[in-house]
């Protein structure tokens, strides 16, 4: 596809994530839907080998791998005439853990249930010029999804011990994943994703986030620092209220996905561009609805922000769902590969 335009250079990608000097813009994406991969490759991308070939052909320097785990929340399926795939949603009222009784009865996954075979396989197959990102997250999201958002909101004040116990359970499991991933010498970047904000502000108070979630992120940040590898944090929404902690206490090196409705890339670059590499930013809505020429123009605007300075990995403002126009996704990538250098 685009391998003639750029060969992978994982070291360069890593340096960009560290916000160190770079001379071109690397690509990044948190997720690319299986249907999109199939549409582009003409076949399903399932094995680690397929994944490496797919990412390499599009110009990415990495593959991203997660440990295997399943935590039951309370999800429903919605059918949508606009897309082939059905979508599952978490209940915002009822959860699977709503009180101490259901907490005690719940069959919690154990650290020994975590599964790393795909990750180990990736470690063996990854070529020298590419690297592996170890990614997981959702401590906060899993807690509220398991409890239902309204019940979670009430219990924050009515039963803070239950909330604390939930964070201990989920946080302990997720931290263990990062501990294991950081110990694998082929994992060269850690990526934690957990949405804590809307486009108008944080979902819950900054104090709650600081007390309940950030201690885990701080420990993950210490793992990354000890291994001298970049630490990317993903959250939708406006994050200015907790930006100092993310940078100074937790030690993230890179921030994803910089949604345009929430934070303006140029403004964010001015405010924290000397401390963070910014990742993403290209509006998923535009990738769905604009023309390919409009996407090329939009991508050029972002390239101008980073040109000569670096500190930006190009990608969508969230991920690439199946309903993005494939030609727009490819137009974004091609523009970065052809014009994102200096």
């Amino acid at each position: 596809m685009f391998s003639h335009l750029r060969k992978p250079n994982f070291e360069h990608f890593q340096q960009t994530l560290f916000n160190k000097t770079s001379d071109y813009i690397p690509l990044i994406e948190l997720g690319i839907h299986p249907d999109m991969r199939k549409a582009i490759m003409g076949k399903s991308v399932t094995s680690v080998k397929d994944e490496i070939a797919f990412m390499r052909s599009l110009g990415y320097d990495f593959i991203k791998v997660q440990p295997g785990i399943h935590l039951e929340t309370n999800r429903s399926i919605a059918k949508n005439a606009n897309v082939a795939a059905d979508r599952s949603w978490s209940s915002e009222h009822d959860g699977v853990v709503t009180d101490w009784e259901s907490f005690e009865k719940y069959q919690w996954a154990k650290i020994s249930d975590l599964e790393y075979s795909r990750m180990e396989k990736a470690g063996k197959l990854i070529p020298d010029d590419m690297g592996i990102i170890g990614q997981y997250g959702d401590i906060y999201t899993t807690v509220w999804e398991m409890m239902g958002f309204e019940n979670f909101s009430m219990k924050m004040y009515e039963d803070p011990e239950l909330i604390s116990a939930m964070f201990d359970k989920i946080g302990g499991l997720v931290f263990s994943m990062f501990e294991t991933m950081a110990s694998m010498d082929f994992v060269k970047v850690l990526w934690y994703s957990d949405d804590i904000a809307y486009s108008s502000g944080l979902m819950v108070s900054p104090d709650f986030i600081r007390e309940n979630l950030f201690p885990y992120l701080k420990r993950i940040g210490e793992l990354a620092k000890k291994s001298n590898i970049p630490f990317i944090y993903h959250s939708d929404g406006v994050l200015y209220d907790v930006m100092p902690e993310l940078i100074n206490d937790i030690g993230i090196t890179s921030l994803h996905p910089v949604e345009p409705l929430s934070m303006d890339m140029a403004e964010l670059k001015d405010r924290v561009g000397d401390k963070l590499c910014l990742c993403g930013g290209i509006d998923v809505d535009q990738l769905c609805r604009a023309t390919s020429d409009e996407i090329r123009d939009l991508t050029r605007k972002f390239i101008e922000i980073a040109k000569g300075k670096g500190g930006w990995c190009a990608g969508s403002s969230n991920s690439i769902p199946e309903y993005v126009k494939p030609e727009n996704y490819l137009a974004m990538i091609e523009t970065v590969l052809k014009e994102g250098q200096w």
Partner: protein
Amino acid sequence: MPILESIKHCVVQGHIDATSKFPKNMEGQEGVRELTKQAITDGVAVEDILMKGLIPAMTIVGQRYEKNEIFVPEMLFSAKAMKSGLELIKPFLLEGSDLILGKVIIGTVQGDLHDIGKNLVCMMLEGAGFEIVDLGINIPAPKFLEAAKNNPEAIIGMSALLTVTMKNMKGVIELLRVNELDNKVFIGGAPVTPAFAEEIGAEGYAKNANQAVREAKRLLDIKA
């Protein structure tokens, strides 16, 4: 503190009743439920409880939310507190009373089961004095049409979380207009923008629950 001021204070603070643990510094104190009962017993006009207690309180709550002084959980407590008072005075409010600002049909469009935002909008609209017809989540266009036929005076609010589901808003508006219904429509949700609202022919757009109240008032030509 006069009783209406106390009701207002409790709604702003999100203190539902004496058993409520929120906020911590009001634990054990009477809340909106007890104070509203007391006010009714004392012969305070229910109109005053609504207009001088509950509604102005929710206006303050909305402003605090917009300024990021409080967040969704605290707003939920306030909404529940307001509702506990509203339920007590509802039997005394006459149908068609001019205290009801107007009617809003509201729902999350087909394919979309997200409703934290939609519910907050319902709570804020109710708190501002609107009557709500909450269709719920994952609502196909014909259901919006049916509700509009049954409530020709109502405006319609639609919500969506995703780019792919927000496209369904256009279908609802088209169906309404094909059926010659002129209910005004306003929309909101994470991916929705004023430009998109204009593009699909929606008369209004709201970025958050507090803006939804302002927008509903604007569409119904109600002075703030």
